[in-house]
Structure formats: C-alpha cells, structure tokens
C-alpha cells in the first residue's frame, strides 16, 4: 500500500491504514525518539505521543515534502515537549554564560571511532542531563541552528551555546573512561593479546 493510499485511508479513519502507517514508520521514529529519551520506556512514550499528533493533524499535511520528514518533525517536537516537562524538575543553572565561546571540538581517530558501537553512543547520549542532551541532539544530530534551538526551548542563544559546550566536555570525558573499558581490537576484530 503506497503512502498516498495510507494517507487517504487514515483521513477516512480506516484503522487498517492507520496501523499500516504506524508500522511503516515505527522503526525510524523510534530511533529518533531514543536520542531524546533517557530510556526505552521514555522513547516509546514519546513515540506514541508523536503518532497521536500525526493522526490528529494528518489533514494539515500539504504533501510538499516527504511524509517521513513531516512525521519526523512532529516526533522531534513531541520529544522537545516531553523533555521540557522533564527538565522543569531538573534545575540545571548555567554557571557562566558570558565566557568566551569555546565550542572547539576534539577530533577522534578512525580507530577510536570504530571502537564505539551505536549502543555505546546511545548510552553516552542518554547519560547527559536533559537540557544538555536536547541541545546536543538538536544541533549535532538534527542540524538545528542556535537560534532555532533557543526559540524552541525558550532559552537565550548564549545559554544554548553553553549547554552545547558542556555537553561536548562531558561526552569527551565519558568517552575516555569508556575507552579504558572497551578492549582494543586489531583489523580482524580480534581482541589484542595481553
């Protein structure tokens, strides 16, 4: 069943079409939600909230872009709303916002790059505080600008930059700690002999 048929069926409140649309985009959207959530349960919660908005506002989809991109945008917004609710209880006050903009990134050797699996990267991301994770994911992964992130999160741009800087610092430290735990492998994927 094509996307157009799915859309028309969903607009007619056809449950089979709704289920088809849900299962078609389930994996991709769950992958998106996992970046913003602290756990699998939170990611599933965000996913269902996002799909509820998709089915509610499907009539407003004007078919200018891909349906997947439109649904992904809704998922990101649902994740941001969820994180904002969560971050209300997490009082993280930026210590110094007006310091020099030290957003230089560390560069990683390819061999180091290969030592990290996707699950390791996800765990590193989920270990960050909510606001740090949100800003880092929106900027580094989704490609949002500082102004867009500031308007979405209702914070100042300087605060956004500070969050990003602190997030990178934390990730670097934790990656170094993780590298000590992950065994080094040779080109054949075999663990190095001790």
């Amino acid at each position: 069943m094509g996307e157009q048929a799915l859309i028309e069926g969903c607009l007619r409140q056809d449950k089979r079409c709704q289920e088809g649309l849900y299962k078609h985009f389930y994996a991709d959207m769950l992958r998106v939600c996992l970046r913003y959530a602290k756990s699998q349960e939170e990611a599933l919660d965000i996913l269902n909230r996002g799909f509820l908005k998709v089915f509610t506002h499907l009539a407003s989809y004007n078919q200018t872009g891909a349906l997947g991109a439109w649904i992904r945008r809704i998922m990101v917004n649902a994740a941001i709303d969820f994180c904002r609710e969560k971050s209300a209880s997490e009082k993280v006050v930026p210590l110094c916002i007006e310091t020099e903009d030290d957003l230089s990134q560390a560069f990683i050797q390819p061999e180091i790059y290969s030592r990290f699996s996707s699950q390791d990267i996800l765990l590193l991301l989920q270990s960050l505080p909510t606001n740090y994770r949100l800003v880092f994911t929106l900027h580094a992964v989704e490609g949002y600008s500082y102004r867009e992130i500031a308007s979405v999160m209702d914070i100042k741009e300087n605060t956004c930059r500070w969050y990003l800087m602190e997030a990178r610092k934390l990730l670097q430290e934790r990656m170094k700690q993780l590298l000590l735990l992950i065994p080094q492998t040779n080109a054949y994927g075999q663990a190095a002999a001790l």
Partner: protein
Amino acid sequence: MDKQPLYSIDTLFQQKLEELPVDASLQHEQWQSLRKSMYQQPNVFQSYLQKPVVKLLYMTVVALIPFAVYYFSHQQDVERKASPYIGNSVSRSLLLLNQASRPIPSNEPGVQKQVATRPPKKEASAVTIHTSIPDTGQALKATGSLPASGKDSAQTMPLKQEKPVVKKNDSSYIYWQ
C-alpha cells in the same frame, strides 16, 4: 598513504545514531495502546461540564452564594427588629411609636404642639364655683358635686340637711337673686 579523516564528536554521534538497531518486538503492543488512547470514549458528563456556557452558569451560581447568604441573614435581622410592631400588643407598639417621636420645634402659631399636657385640675373649677355661687345648694345643682372646701367634710360627716329656702319679701333679696 592516505590520511584517514578525523571525526568530530558531532559526526561520530550523528552517524552512529543513524545506524542504531531498533527492537521491533514491542511494535504490536505499542500499537494496541495507541489505538486505545485514540478511540477512548470521553465521559459524557465531563464533556458537558467542559462547555463554556455550563461553566459560566455554575460560576455565576457560585459567585452569587455569598450575596444570598448576606441577604437572608439581613432579612432575619429586619424581621427580628419588626417583631414588636406585629401581633396583639397594639398598645405596646403605640407606646414605642410615641417614644420614638420627637417634638418638632416650630414658630408658627397655628401649629399644634404635641406636648404631653396634664389633665385639668378639678380644684380650679371647684374654687371658681365656690366664689361665684355662695349657696351650697346652688353649687350642688350646678356642678353635681360638692365644693372643694366641703369635700373633705362631706366624706367624713353626713350631709347636713339644708334649710328650705324661704322667700323674703324685702327688696334686697330680689337683687341677690
């Protein structure tokens, strides 16, 4: 020897997260819970209460309650104060009205002053009768009562028998008549 590119943290995370494998075992269960929340029937009564007209109505009722309490409590005070004027005690209510009234100062001669006056003394009328009509018999006929000077004596002593009036033929008697 080709130089291998260096990866920034941003690039590392971006690429690794795109390749993240996802567990689809919970897909059906998640769809069932989503469908339940989508097609859940709302409570009819709660949806009725959410209407703006109904909200306005019960907010108005709630706002009027203090005024109603004040009105009815004040009404009871008025009735309590009015109780002396109602019922069988007409004279008592008249007394209260008289006590409540105040003298109205006025310079007009025609205005009757509402002043509590003493009843006229009976002694004055008895004295005048005594000087004008010396004969006690005539005084009795005129007033129907004993003169003041003889009042006490009449109470203690029996009535004296009056001498019958004797007509005299001299001229002086005529004048006195």
